[in-house]
């Protein structure tokens, strides 16, 4: 008998309309920080971290609220990144269409993979997602358009809506922040909607949800597709920002990294994945100088988090302050 994931997470207070003040306050804090940060911190780093933050939030939707551990989320992130890069570079799409193309790719792949994976639960679900991701990794390796080991490089930033030149870092930054916030708010809306409540019910006790008449498979599939779509959005944005789409984005260590981000930040919290993403990306960037230790440090963080900080940074903070984050 296995206890589901959230038994180790702070149980969410049962309330349909959250009349609590902590989440909106945290949101305001986050937006303020994002507005001010580029003055002090290298903007490219911030943009990269925001893309991964969105990716981690999308992943968290599935595991933290749906109870489904996907071990192959890089599939949607990476392939969306490829399609966005290709459409911007080769088909000449303006950035908003390129990002849309990538996001749709994530959605389509999510539907296909989801309908296959949903049929099983628990560890088998995770294994299927991993298998599918690995298969698609090998396709990416072999297909011409992905550029194989070199990836797709020199992706043009383009002009957003034909007007805003994204080669300018400031414009790009604002665009990324807007996309991130839109995705974030969407996830928040999903979590706190009737759909979200049913999802949580399914996570807690699926047989009971079925007995109540809910078609649980459909809910799970929808959650899966939403998660994949938003991961696709994150991947497409990243392709435009960094102007690169490469094999790293579809490989299984990337899937492992997004799990790490969500874990470090706090599974099942709204802000957790954001914090987790920033922490991990910061570590990679600022520790690049002592690069040979990055793997070991990541491993240590995994171990320490699992043993001692299962609730993640934000989760522990929230539990300590007795608020919801």
């Amino acid at each position, binding site marked *: 008998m296995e206890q589901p994931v959230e038994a180790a997470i702070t149980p969410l207070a049962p309330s349909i309309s959250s009349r609590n003040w902590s989440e909106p306050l945290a949101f305001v804090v986050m937006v303020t920080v994002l507005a001010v940060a580029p003055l002090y911190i290298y903007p*490219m780093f911030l943009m990269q971290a925001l893309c991964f933050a969105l990716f981690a939030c999308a992943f968290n939707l599935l595991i933290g609220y749906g109870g489904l551990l996907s071990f192959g989320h890089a599939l949607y992130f990476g392939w969306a990144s490829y399609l966005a890069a290709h459409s911007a570079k080769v088909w000449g799409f303006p950035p908003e269409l390129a990002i849309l193309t990538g996001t749709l790719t994530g959605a389509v792949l999510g539907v296909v993979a989801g309908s296959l994976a949903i049929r099983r639960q628990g560890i088998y679900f995770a294994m299927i997602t991993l298998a599918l991701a690995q298969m698609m990794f090998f396709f990416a390796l072999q297909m011409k358009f992905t550029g194989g080991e070199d990836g797709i*490089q020199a992706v043009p930033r383009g002009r957003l809506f034909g007007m805003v030149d994204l080669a300018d870092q400031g414009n790009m930054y604002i665009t990324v922040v807007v996309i991130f916030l839109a995705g974030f708010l969407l996830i928040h809306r999903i979590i706190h909607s009737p759909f979200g409540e049913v999802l949580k019910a399914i996570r807690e006790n699926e047989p009971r949800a079925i007995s109540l008449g809910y078609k649980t498979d459909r809910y799970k599939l929808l959650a899966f597709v939403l998660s994949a779509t938003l991961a696709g959005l994150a991947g497409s944005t990243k392709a435009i920002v960094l102007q690169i789409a490469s094999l790293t984005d579809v490989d299984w260590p990337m899937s492992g990294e997004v799990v790490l981000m969500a874990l470090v930040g706090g599974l099942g919290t709204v802000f957790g994945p954001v914090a987790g993403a920033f922490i991990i990306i910061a570590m990679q960037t600022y520790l*690049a100088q*002592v690069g040979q230790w990055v793997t070991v440090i990541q491993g240590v963080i995994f171990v320490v988090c699992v043993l001692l900080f299962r609730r993640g940074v934000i989760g522990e903070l929230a539990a300590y302050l007795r608020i919801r984050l």
Partner: protein
Amino acid sequence: MKRLLSLTAVAVALAASSAQAQQVSVKIGVMSDMSSLYADIGGPGSTAAAKLAIADFAKSNPNVKVELVSADHQNKADVGSGVVNKWYDTENVDLVIDVPNSGVALAVSQIAATKNKVFIVSGAAASDLTGPKCNANTIHWTYDTWMLANGTGKALVKTGGDSWFFLTADYAFGHALERDTAAAVEANGGKVLGKVRHPLNTNDFSSFLLQAQTSKAKIIGLANAGGDTINSIKAGAEFGIVKGGQKFAGLLVFASDVNALGLATAQGLTLTETWYWDGNDNNRAWTKRWQTERAAAGKFPTMVQAGVYSGITHYLKAVASLKSGADGKAVVAEMKKLPTDDVLFGKGTIRADGRKIHDAYLLEVKSPAESKYPGDFYKVKATIPAAEAFRPLKDGGCPLVSG
């Protein structure tokens, strides 16, 4: 680590300088794979080589102040480009050097061109860097796929290896290596009897080697790299490939790979490199210094690391001549104008497409009986003169040239 490096470099510069009239200041970044596949080919060894280059140059040019930083691109194009962007934008790095991994190198080359900085590729192999993807800010130093393919392919055919079978890693780099080598083989009168493509990072090659054995080709060309090459050769030893009269041609093999294989397994392997630690007295003396700097037992420098030393030396020469490192294009133009001369690669030139020209050597791995001391890996089968070793200027398709 970073602080230690900068402190060392600053200390060296300070120690060597007294009151000067014109201080030229530059910052160099060694970006390599410090932690995975190519860490022994470039990695911390490249940083060590860089330190030696800076120290040597400071001795005779006290008015040039050089700061050194290093980073790990972890073989990821996005990590690499992220670090390089940060270096160029916020840390005033003027030169990025090394970068084993063609994908990362191509990305960095673009960035260097956009930001008008300098990029010297020592570690990566893609001949496109001086071909269609060339630009006025990039120099390709040590070797490239064309040179490897032609060096090994042509030289082997001329010495009797005229029938070939390819074992190719199934991705762009492997295909390119196979294509270029097959072209060289056929252009020199040899025949390609067949090929088989294996997935990247294959553990077990027995099945593919069986096919190679059946083909009865005299030479089995390994169009792969790193762990794949090592595994191919190890399996080859087991299946008695060499005993059966066939030979392996390693199309991308470094001294560190031979070290990892051990001579008993690797003996008879033919490969091409542009620098070998035991090639002459200069190289040997430098290697001793490198080993002290590197402070890791049992390692020998590869041509990539020697290339870092040589590249930095010439860069600093150009900067000293211009009295500034600020304008990347100007520095590179100066580097192309000045002939190169350093203790490792000797005299050479840099062409208009950014290609550094020097001799190449066809090497064969010695048997354990022939090896007299640790590191005595190779016997030199042939020297390929610089004029023939690299792709002709007109064939590259570099816009800087044909335009």
